[in-house]
């Protein structure tokens, strides 16, 4: 039989035995859907994380945080050991630094008229906007004089603005952070959700000096971001900063750092590790589902061969060679399983689109996962067809027609 006729016959047969075909497709459908869905999702999540990590950390920068070693938990407001003077002194000694910004973060109650809400309040320097790559969408930012004068001015995120001002224009509005009155001078550029799942539009930025002196009354900062002039030198800069900070904190050779320091490439590397783990286990699970599905398909096809002895006998009588019968059943099994796999890929991709609508991740299509799903269902489909096809081809037409 010629190949086009073989494929047509396989499709006709799928149509003739719809229920059986549906069950045969189930394994490859679920396997391919899971593989495509999870790997695409992981890739989308990773892309989103990398993007926000880049937004927060940026290329060619070094983050110094107070407290030892707990970096991925985010900066700690009450680390206590890191001050603006520490960082300023260290930065003075290290060449190749473009800009830096000290930062302190607290949670405070914010009021406006009758509305009350609790938000993250971030204190930053006049370099805040340039260092963190985030400006104001409306109104204006604060400058050096605001820092020097500890002005009670605030930049508020869209979420905060919506929550406490409603439809009212927040620019020029009065708010209280804790007990301290502030005037809103700008609305922050929208950011969205960051890699920790935090809504970065639900925060307020004020001059660090104001926050420390008037709101919290502490002199320690949570962290500082240092932008390196030449991104290729970030490791060197980080090492020099570490030495300078250790010297300033008078740490002996045998004592560990009482601050943590990390470069942007180290943070990005951490995110990529997550994907490597997914790449190992998800295809394994998808593969196992596909193989089980192949077993189910082979079993159902064997049952189908037994049920269709008369058809096989008839085809043999009218001139089908053993090879024709063998290929008929291999094609039928493979076509069914591959169709299931293709359906699974479509289902998986649709699932990714759906989830991306509701979760903070990009709707990426992992073409590698799609290719693996399709290839695996082709291999499994053909393999599952071999045993039923052998049995069908070996049938004696005289017995089969009886």
């Amino acid at each position, binding site marked *: 039989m010629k190949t086009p006729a073989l494929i047509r016959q396989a499709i*006709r047969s799928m149509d003739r035995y719809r229920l059986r075909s549906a069950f045969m497709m189930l394994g490859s459908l679920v396997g391919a859907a899971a593989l495509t869905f999870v790997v695409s999702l992981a890739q989308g999540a990773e892309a989103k994380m990398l993007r926000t990590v880049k937004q927060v950390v940026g290329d060619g920068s070094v983050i110094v945080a107070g407290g030892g070693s707990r970096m991925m938990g985010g900066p700690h407001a009450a680390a206590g050991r890191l001050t603006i003077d520490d960082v300023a002194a260290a930065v003075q000694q290290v060449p190749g630094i473009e800009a830096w910004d000290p930062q302190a973060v607290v949670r405070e109650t914010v009021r406006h008229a009758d509305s009350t809400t609790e938000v993250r309040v971030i204190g930053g320097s006049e370099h805040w906007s340039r260092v963190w790559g985030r400006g104001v969408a409306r109104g204006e930012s604060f400058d050096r004089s605001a820092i020097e004068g500890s002005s009670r001015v605030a930049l508020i995120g869209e979420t905060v603005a919506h929550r406490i001002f409603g439809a009212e224009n927040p620019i020029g509005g009065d708010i209280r952070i804790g007990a301290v009155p502030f005037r809103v001078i700008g609305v922050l550029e929208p950011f969205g959700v960051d890699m920790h799942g935090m809504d970065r539009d639900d925060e307020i930025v004020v001059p660090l000096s104001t926050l420390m002196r008037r709101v919290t009354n502490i002199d320690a900062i949570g962290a500082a971001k240092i932008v390196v002039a030449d991104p290729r030198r970030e490791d060197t800069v980080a090492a020099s900063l570490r030495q300078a900070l250790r010297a300033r904190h008078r740490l002996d050779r045998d004592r560990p750092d009482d601050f943590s320091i990390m470069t942007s490439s180290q943070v990005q590397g951490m995110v990529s590790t997550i994907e490597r783990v997914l790449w190992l286990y998800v295809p394994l699970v998808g593969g196992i589902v596909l193989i089980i599905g192949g077993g189910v398909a082979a079993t159902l096809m064997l049952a189908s061969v037994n049920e269709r002895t*008369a058809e096989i006998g008839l085809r043999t009588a*009218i001139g089908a060679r053993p090879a024709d019968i063998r290929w008929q059943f291999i094609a039928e099994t493979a076509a069914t399983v591959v169709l299931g796999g293709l359906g699974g890929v479509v289902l998986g991709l649709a699932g990714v689109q759906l989830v991306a609508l509701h979760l903070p991740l990009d709707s990426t299509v992992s073409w590698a996962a799609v290719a693996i799903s399709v290839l695996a269902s082709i291999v499994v489909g053909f393999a599952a067809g071999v045993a039923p096809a052998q049995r069908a081809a070996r049938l004696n037409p*005289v017995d089969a*027609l009886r």
Partner: protein
Amino acid sequence: MIDLESIGKTYTRQTGESVRALDDVSLRIERGEFVAIVGASGSGKSTLMNVLGLLDEPTEGRYRFDAEDVSNLSLAARAGFRNARIGFVFQSFHLLARTSALENVELPLLYSDRADIAGLGERALAAVGLADRMQHTPAELSGGQQQRVAIARALVNEPDLLLADEPTGNLDAAVAAEIMSILQSLNRAGRTIVLVTHDPAMASAARRLVRLAHGRVVSDGPIASGDITLAPTVLEAR
């Protein structure tokens, strides 16, 4: 056209017991003949049909088809030979379910090397009077119509020999007569037909009668009136 020479067939049952199904059968069938092979069940008529149709190999003797020795062809060669030269009609029709009459009829063409197959299916269906039923599935056809589809399928590749194994076994008398008259008219048009049946009434539609008993030919000759009792319906059909 067909020359069987001292054909013997011995089966070995699963119990180890060997069965002599055909014993020294010699038979010549010429082009254009209509031969009925009759015998009781177990007489060897089915085995003889399987040998004639190249579905089964004889254990002894020689089978020549148009002077070509076909006794020991390979499985694939036999399949090709059946496809090109022999048409089969079975008692239980063996039509593919949920498949149109036309597709059923065209099935043998799938396994054919012929290039000029366009229109053959339609022509064969028209020849058995089913031109208006081409797209019907077997479930939508009566028993007699299903067997006519099967006859059209047997004829689609224009075979030299038409083998019919109890073609009326599943049909009632009136419809059976209809099928027999189709076979008769095919034979009048020149088709060589071998009919295997246990029913003497059906055998009477043929022109030559071969009677088998215990794997041997016990009588062979033209059908004369009075040889067989004819059923009234068959008489009418004739």
